[in-house]
């Protein structure tokens, strides 16, 4: 059975190396600030450390006041999973660091989030619309999108 690592546990192991990255944590997830997500993910992926080598999914949720990006990580070697979340500040031009250089798996998924949710991923090599065509007006998965 895949072990589900709670947010508290994961934040404890993160805080030892990255002191002020973690914003909050509860039994489901750990919240990280958008500026440090890249570093946190690098630490998480470190094969000698926590070894979260597999990025299962990146999802984005529109909570009206802010966006939340959810990273589902799995460690194939330790058979455990954890959830990392990032809250963006505000609705206007939300920006998060890209993790596509850490996991290639993030490549298409971040493009999809940019396309449908309109969250910019800083450092993504090819951040273009993916499911919709170039020149589409708006980002349809936002709650305020009127199609």
């Amino acid at each position, binding site marked *: 059975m895949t072990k589900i690592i709670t947010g508290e546990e994961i934040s404890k192991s993160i805080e030892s190396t990255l002191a002020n990255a973690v914003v909050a944590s509860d039994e489901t997830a750990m919240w990280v600030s958008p500026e440090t997500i890249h570093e946190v993910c690098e630490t998480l992926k470190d094969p000698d450390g926590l070894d979260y080598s597999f990025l299962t999914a990146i999802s984005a949720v529109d909570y009206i006041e802010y966006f939340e990006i959810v990273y589902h990580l799995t460690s*194939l070697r330790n058979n455990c999973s954890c959830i990392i979340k990032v809250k963006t500040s505000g609705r206007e031009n939300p920006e998060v660091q890209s993790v596509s250089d850490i996991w290639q798996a993030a490549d298409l998924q971040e493009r999809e989030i940019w396309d449908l949710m309109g969250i910019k991923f800083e450092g993504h090599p090819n951040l273009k619309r993916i499911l919709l065509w170039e020149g589409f007006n708006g980002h349809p998965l936002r709650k305020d999108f009127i*199609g």
Partner: protein
Amino acid sequence: MATIRTEPVTINLGPQHPSTHGVFRLRVTFDGEEIVDLEPVFGYLHRGTEKLAETRNYVQIVTLTDRMDYVASMSNNLAYVRTVEKLSDIEVPERAQYIRVISVELQRIASHLMATGFLLNDLGALATPLVYCFRERERILDLFEMLCGARITLSYMRPGGVFQDAPEEFWSSLNTLISDFPNYLDELESLITTNEIVLARTIGVGLLSDAQAIDSGVTGPILRASSVKWDLRKASPYEIYDRVDFDIPIGSSGDTYDRYYVRLQEMRESIKIISQCIKQIEPGPVRTETPFFIRPPIGEAYSSVEGPKGELGFYMVSDGGISPYRCKVRAPSFINLTPLRDMITGWKMGDLIIILGSIDIVLGEVDR
């Protein structure tokens, strides 16, 4: 050795092309026959499933999930209803779990048969193995028709079980199917597995190393073909998978042949699972009484199953209402396309087609 410099040619492969398995487009740059660059273009079948789900209630979304991976809608249904059950703590009766597992494994066989058939069609075998595969898939679809009245868009599962128990004749047909099927697979293997042309075309083509496979997030038979032993049915057993005994076939190097062969072996394992389920299943209710308008508590859940194409997950956020606040699909076909460029670059035109065929994408799921 000096070679003559040739001008690269860019070809638009698709959206209407016999081998893109749907409306999928690849902008491929060739240098002679060799591929130097390619860019996949998605979205021709985008229907906004995730947005539509936000305006449907929890039972109605089942019909939307049918239309994502339309060759394996049973698995989609299962992944979705499991998420809803996790979100709102619904217990599922044991018999329903067995029926779910049986139908999902049947669906896996059907999907893998289609993948194998189309791979051989891409290899240029003039549809003969394809028709042989379809002949057997047809029998599975007949079983589905008995089970739930439809053949492709099944909508069989509901949060809390399945909507209807299987009819009497389903079990006898299932028994004949699983007793015939291994012979049929042997026949298919003697047509394909030892065929030297297939070996020459597929071995060593489209290599995906284990490290890159994990890094690029591919799942399912492609990941296992790259010798990574990872299967959600074993890694985190859901439903009753912990009560059945089966192996996880893996490939040795991660080339196109391995991807084909892993699928073939998985079909044998599925038959094994089904026959064990038939032995273990007991009479009982198949559905927990749930209201039609399910109102899960505020919260979120991620749940995934091992679909035929890979890890099929749903991430749902509930605001306590009758429809989900956000319903995100982790579509395996979509994410399996991540390493496409690295896999194909440097190979030839004929290899492009079979590598794409061996990934086994369904455009309904890629574009959602």
